[in-house]
């Protein structure tokens, strides 16, 4: 058998496929299922972001209130409450928490905005 005979044999015996509407119907059903899963995943992600943002905003408010209390309240009363050296550590910690909360909260809000787009 030479190359031409082989080529003729192959081309003559090309598999026959009939146009099958059931095939397309099944494809459509599977794609709908994929869409459903994608929507559900998006919804869950959005909810997670909202929950995270609310938590961070609450943390930020709490941090601000503590910082304000530390800065505004009479020093003697705070000193007696937290101790001489612990005062500076408490101020530094509350400022750090506030900054981190602001950063993470802003980041979450940006992510939610991206999801909506």
């Amino acid at each position, binding site marked *: 058998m030479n190359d031409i005979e082989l080529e003729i044999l192959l081309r003559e015996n090309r598999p026959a*496929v009939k146009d099958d509407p059931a095939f397309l119907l099944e494809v459509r059903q599977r794609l709908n299922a994929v869409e459903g899963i994608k929507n559900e995943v998006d919804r869950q992600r959005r909810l997670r972001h909202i929950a995270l943002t609310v938590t961070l905003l609450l943390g930020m408010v709490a941090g601000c209130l503590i910082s304000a209390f530390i800065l505004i309240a009479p020093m003697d009363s705070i000193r007696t409450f937290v101790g001489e050296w612990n005062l500076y550590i408490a101020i530094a910690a509350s400022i750090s928490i506030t900054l981190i909360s602001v950063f993470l909260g802003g980041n979450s809000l940006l992510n939610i905005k991206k999801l909506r787009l």
Partner: protein
Amino acid sequence: MTEERFIDLVKVEQEPLRRFLLALCCGDSSLADDIAQDSLVRAYVASGSFMGLSSFRTWLFRIAYNCYVDHRRKKHPGLAPIDGNEALNLEDRNTSDASFRYQQLYQALDRLSENERTAIILFYFEDRSIKEIASILGIPAGTVKYHLSIGRSHLKEHISL
């Protein structure tokens, strides 16, 4: 890509895709359609990454080929050939002589290596160019030519007419 747009493209491509997989599966039409369904879902999920660097058909065939290879690896970890009896599930073959030649051809195709068989099927059944076959298989064009040449020699050895 929207679902409707994707379905429109699939309507055009479903026949060559199913024919390609049917030939790869040596005539097992239910297996070929299962793999075609899986590959279309995979293509739809990845449709956002389709950059249009190759044609939609080439991109789809590449995904289908990868699905087929995954399926073979899962089902036959040693890439054992499909049972020759599966090749009996073939359509539109009326005369016993034609049926015999057809069956013999598919059994011979089944004995080729994965790359040789795919190159032969794409080249002779789907009329794809060497460049397109290279893109589908993810190998250089020279290697495709080599697989075609070796595949032809092996087919001639296996087919006794």
